[in-house]
């Protein structure tokens, strides 16, 4: 497992806040790696340091063996960036955006044209080739941003919140495209606050909160390590009812009480349901444990406020 990105004690401080508070991670070549955390966790800032958009305050960050503070151009030439904001050129057409962007990478004109057409095909945007950006939907713009991020056939593709604001259909389309890209050998790095996205797309991930890394590992492994297998949820639980539940299950039971909801972490949710039958609970859910539960356990808060 060869590391293509290495970060050690990486820090980013602004005047009044520490956005990234000394983090360490290594990303292997060819893997899909995620940064999962709520808004403000420091994910985007970390991405910006990787693609040399902002300089680190301290610590070590190397991409493909290059130091981000010393060789930004070399790093940028092998990266593709799909930013969170829409930074498409509003005055140019879809194809115009791709050709103009290809120039910054010094892609020869003929190849740029071929590649642009192929990318538009891949992202199902060929029909919109000559359309002005304003006339595209949010989902189409995002797909165009991904196409643009690939114009220099990068070794590493960085996507910052790639499906935020997209409808479920568009989201699934992006996910399948990303899987295709990963299979072609590109290292995929994405940030997200959607647990499902991280779990589905990433081989490994880090969980971030307040600029720190809480955990690092494969999604399944993290869930197993912290939670177990299943979760039994009960809604509309006040203090009184919570005490009754705790009494019924005993001291060894792992329980979280957050807002009006109780999360009971167990090996079998249906077994727990049986043990609580006498309480005549309402609004119950039995489900598999996921990363959201891990995050809640580690931080006492949810991924999405």
């Amino acid at each position, binding site marked *: 497992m060869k590391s293509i990105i290495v970060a050690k004690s990486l820090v980013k401080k*602004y005047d009044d806040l520490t956005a990234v508070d000394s983090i360490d991670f290594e990303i292997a070549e060819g893997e899909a790696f995620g940064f999962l955390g709520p808004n403000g966790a420091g994910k985007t800032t970390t991405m910006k340091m990787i*693609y040399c*958009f*902002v*300089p680190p305050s301290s610590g070590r960050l190397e991409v493909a063996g290059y130091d981000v503070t010393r060789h*930004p*151009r070399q790093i*940028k*030439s092998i*990266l593709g*960036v799909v*930013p969170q*904001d*829409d*930074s*498409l*050129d*509003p*005055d*140019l057409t879809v194809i*115009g955006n791709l050709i*103009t*962007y290809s*120039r*910054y*990478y*010094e892609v020869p004109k003929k190849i740029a044209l071929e590649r642009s057409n192929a990318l538009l095909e891949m992202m199902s945007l060929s029909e919109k080739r000559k359309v002005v950006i304003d006339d595209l939907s949010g989902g189409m713009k995002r797909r165009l941003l991904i196409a643009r991020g690939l114009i*220099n056939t990068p070794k590493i593709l960085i996507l910052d919140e790639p499906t935020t604001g997209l409808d479920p259909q568009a989201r699934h389309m992006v996910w399948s495209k990303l899987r295709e890209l990963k299979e072609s050998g590109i290292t995929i790095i994405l940030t997200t606050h959607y647990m499902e996205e991280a779990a589905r797309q990433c081989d490994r991930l880090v969980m971030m909160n307040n600029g720190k890394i809480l955990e690092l590992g494969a999604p399944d492994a993290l869930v197993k390590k912290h939670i177990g297998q299943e979760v039994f949820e009960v809604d509309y639980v006040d203090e009184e009812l919570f005490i009754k539940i705790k009494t019924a299950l005993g001291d060894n039971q792992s329980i979280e009480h957050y807002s009006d909801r109780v999360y009971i972490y167990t090996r079998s949710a249906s077994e727990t349901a049986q043990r609580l039958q006498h309480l005549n609970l309402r609004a119950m859910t039995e489900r598999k444990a996921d990363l959201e539960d891990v995050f809640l356990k580690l931080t006492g808060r949810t991924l999405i406020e």
Partner: protein
Amino acid sequence: MNLNPFSGVSHRAYYVFLRHRDVFIKTITTSLIPPFLDPLFYLLGMGYGLGSMISPIHGMTYVQFIAPALVASVMMTAPFFECTVGTFVRIEYQKTFDAMISTPVSTEDVVTGDIMYGAGRAMLQGTAILIVITAFGLVKSPWAILIVPLCFLLGLVYGSMAMLYTSFIPAINYVDYFFTLIMTPMFIFAGTFFPVAQLPHWAQKAAWFMPLYHTVNITRALNIGDIGAIWGNMLWMLICGLIFYALALWRMRHRLVK
């Protein structure tokens, strides 16, 4: 500590310029005509209208006197506008800058590309006005053709000045100060509409510090074929340009890379 004030600039500035050119062509109906009309109106109104009441200046009719100065003024106004409003919009609202910086293009490349584009606009508009005044028979020497490339070279100086200003402002309405406090006074007092000698002594000395004063001298001299007269003014513009360019790079780097 890097002592080279121009470090970070590369040939990639040209790709930034090309992107601006592409947008210009796409929006050509609104970008080409309006800025070209302004000096035309001054020529007709002041030159012929007012000029009919004014006695010859330095052996020239009034309209002959102001015509090359109006060409010079365009070398100032086009980059001034492009490197304030244009640059600010790209940075703050359109995130165009962000997109560029995610590629091997550097902050310095973007600043330089913007300045080059401002100079390109100066050349386009300056050439248009030059053609107009030639049609009116106001050009007295074939040396005036040198004004065309000079529009670009001198436009770089004005672009750098404007870029330096832009590096300081927090919001787009501050651009107005630049136009009213810097551009307009230069436009009026740098020898465009009347010789600087008409000003009080202290103001004449102050005029020497205005880039437009030297630009107007250059275009007037070339218009009548007096090649020898331009070199002092050219040197002034060169030094002014290098200083402002270095300062603009420094300040923009400071503003954009946090």
